[in-house]
């Protein structure tokens, strides 16, 4: 998001030839379509390609939802929360408080009822993870601002404790989490099958991305966050309490992790406490690829990682085991600080 400007909002500003060039870095934007097109002949069959691409986009959107909060928190507060995965797990497990007792609504053959119950689950999950984020920031993170080594250790410790508490509260067994009735099955487009739930995931992911984009570019809070990413001290010197901004962003980021957790849990249709750990690795790779702190980079990185995983899974299953690492290495060889390095970091 660091390359976007809004010339459309120009209030009659004169434009002349001597204006400085607006440097928009388009290259990373091309990566996703280029990768998809290059894979088409390799995959061979068009319907298969459509299915794979859609699966990749859906997975990418879910990873983006989980990763966006983490990268924003890092950009603004210079805190890397190694316990971010715990919010993903807590979100997913909290959703079971709604999804399991309201089984009837889940199994009902009514899109409205299904949406209502999933929506309620998401709402509860985001509320709980948001509040948990608030507590986490206050108790775990606040004493260690600016101390990277301790941050890593403490947030890791927080993650261990949270994961164990999940076992205590929800038990160590895995919980089946079947999709609601109307979310199942696939749309048939020509010869290609696109699963309904993946379509929903793409829609939710795009909504989150656009909302974030608008908030960051068109609202005062968003401008303050972007300003704070670059120079928090100056934001304070302009009279704003950056601490409040921190808490707000931390809560929002945690709530997004919770949302991602619910989406991911429904996608996998089972829940284990390991969900936090396995998504943490994905999320880290994504935000490294995107450039630590960059939301736009995180979006592209998430899509790239997920598409690579899907194509590789089809073309060379053994390579798929390490495809995300290989992708990360390739990106870092090209741009050592990720696709969109944030100036200060």
């Amino acid at each position, binding site marked *: 998001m660091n390359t976007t400007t809004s010339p459309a909002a120009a209030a009659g500003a004169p434009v002349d030839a001597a204006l400085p060039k607006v440097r928009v870095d388009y290259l990373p934007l091309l990566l996703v379509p280029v990768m998809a097109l290059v894979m088409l002949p390799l995959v061979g069959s068009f319907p298969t390609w459509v299915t794979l691409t859609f699966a990749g986009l859906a997975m990418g959107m879910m990873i983006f939802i989980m990763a966006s909060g983490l990268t924003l928190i890092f950009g603004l507060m210079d805190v890397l929360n190694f316990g971010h995965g715990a919010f993903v797990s807590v979100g997913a497990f909290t959703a079971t408080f709604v999804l399991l007792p309201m089984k009837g609504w889940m199994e009902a053959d009514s899109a409205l009822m299904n949406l209502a119950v999933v929506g309620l689950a998401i709402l509860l999950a985001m509320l709980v993870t948001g509040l948990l984020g608030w507590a986490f920031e206050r108790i775990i993170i606040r004493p260690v601002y600016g101390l990277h080594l301790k941050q*890593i250790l*403490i947030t890791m410790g927080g993650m261990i404790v949270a994961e164990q508490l999940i076992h205590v509260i929800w038990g160590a067994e895995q919980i089946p989490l079947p999709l609601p009735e109307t979310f199942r099955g696939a749309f048939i487009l020509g010869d290609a099958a696109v699963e309904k739930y993946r379509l929903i995931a793409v829609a939710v992911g795009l909504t989150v991305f656009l909302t974030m984009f608008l908030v960051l570019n068109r609202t005062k809070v968003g401008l303050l966050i972007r300003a704070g990413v670059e120079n928090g001290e100056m934001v304070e010197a302009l009279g704003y309490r950056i601490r409040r901004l921190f808490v707000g962003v931390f809560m929002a980021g945690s709530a997004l992790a919770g949302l991602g957790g619910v989406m991911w849990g429904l996608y996998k249709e089972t829940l284990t406490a390991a969900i936090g750990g396995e998504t943490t690795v994905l999320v880290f790779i994504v935000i490294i690829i995107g450039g630590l702190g960059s939301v736009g980079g995180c979006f592209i990185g998430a899509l790239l990682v997920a598409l690579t995983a899907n194509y590789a899974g089809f073309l060379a299953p053994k390579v798929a085991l*390490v495809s995300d690492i290989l992708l990360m290495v390739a990106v870092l060889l090209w741009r050592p600080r990720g696709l969109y390095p944030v100036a200060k*970091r």
Partner: protein
Amino acid sequence: MLTTLLSGDFPRSRALSVLLLLVLVGLALAPFLVHGARALNVAATICIFVVLVASYDLQLGYTGIVSFAHTMFYGIGAYGVGIALHAMGPGWGPVALGTAAALAISLVLALVIGLFSLRVRAIFYAMITLAVAAAFAVLASQLSDITGGEDGRSFKVPEILQPSFRLMDGEILGRAIDGRVVTYYLVFASALALFLLMLRIVNSPFGRVLQAIRENDFRAEALGYRTVVYRTLANCLGALVATLAGVLMALWLRYVGPKTTLSFEVMTDILLMVVIGGMGTLYGAVVGSALFILAQNYLQALMGQASEALSGVPFLSQLFHPDRWLLWLGVLFVLSVYFFPTGIVGKLRAGALARSQKSP
């Protein structure tokens, strides 16, 4: 003599000296002090973890690098020997070959990871090692043709180390001198040697530069030290020693598998031992490992009893379930990072220092 052995780095606290001596004597005489296979297993595990944790401290405590790939190097060592012995049969040749191959792989991996990420920031390195280690663990469990997959590999060790081997007839203090005892002393001697070597390294000029970098890398750079080179060296050194610890573990267990070497639980165990023992003091690794492994083996049983006693109370019995051992460790870990960042050794030394200043 002692000064040379300890490289001039004395415990500097009477309580700590007693504690260290206790551990040393205990481990040295373990086969004769305790009976049964389990107790000996605890002693050998302590020996190996002292090395593993100390090599981690070389990175974390002395250089300020947070790595989550330490278990990967440990695993490489274990798998190197394990696969070689499994494929080529028992013998010292495969052990040497497996060790050499493992060391080479570890060195290359540590170099590559270091070059990629050590230039940037501590956080970057921590994230990348986490990702690489996770990928490695997946590879090890999926490439089952080579590694045996989730089940791992059992293998035969050289004859002198096999349980059926008898070094001499008869018993000493009620313990038959069999291959297990020989293996134990191989592990013990190697661990002691590696530990003293690391002590030498951190107290050499090289070690002092590392600590200077940890305190203030800008200043160290300004003084003319290539911080990247030093960091990378420390990182490689830590990785190599971890690999050797893996070799020892494989020889002791006669088995390698993802659970015992590569799992994230092992990584958290190492972190806990370093922090509880005391970062930045190799003696912390000794104290941390010994206490942790003893607690792990004997406190967990206690938790089981507590859980049973509380079996009527739904939530509490879950909290004290032996499987929730990690929960309490996690809490302990967070608390110690906050309140005792220097760990047990730091506390003991600070106490000794305060006393010596009070009574001139």
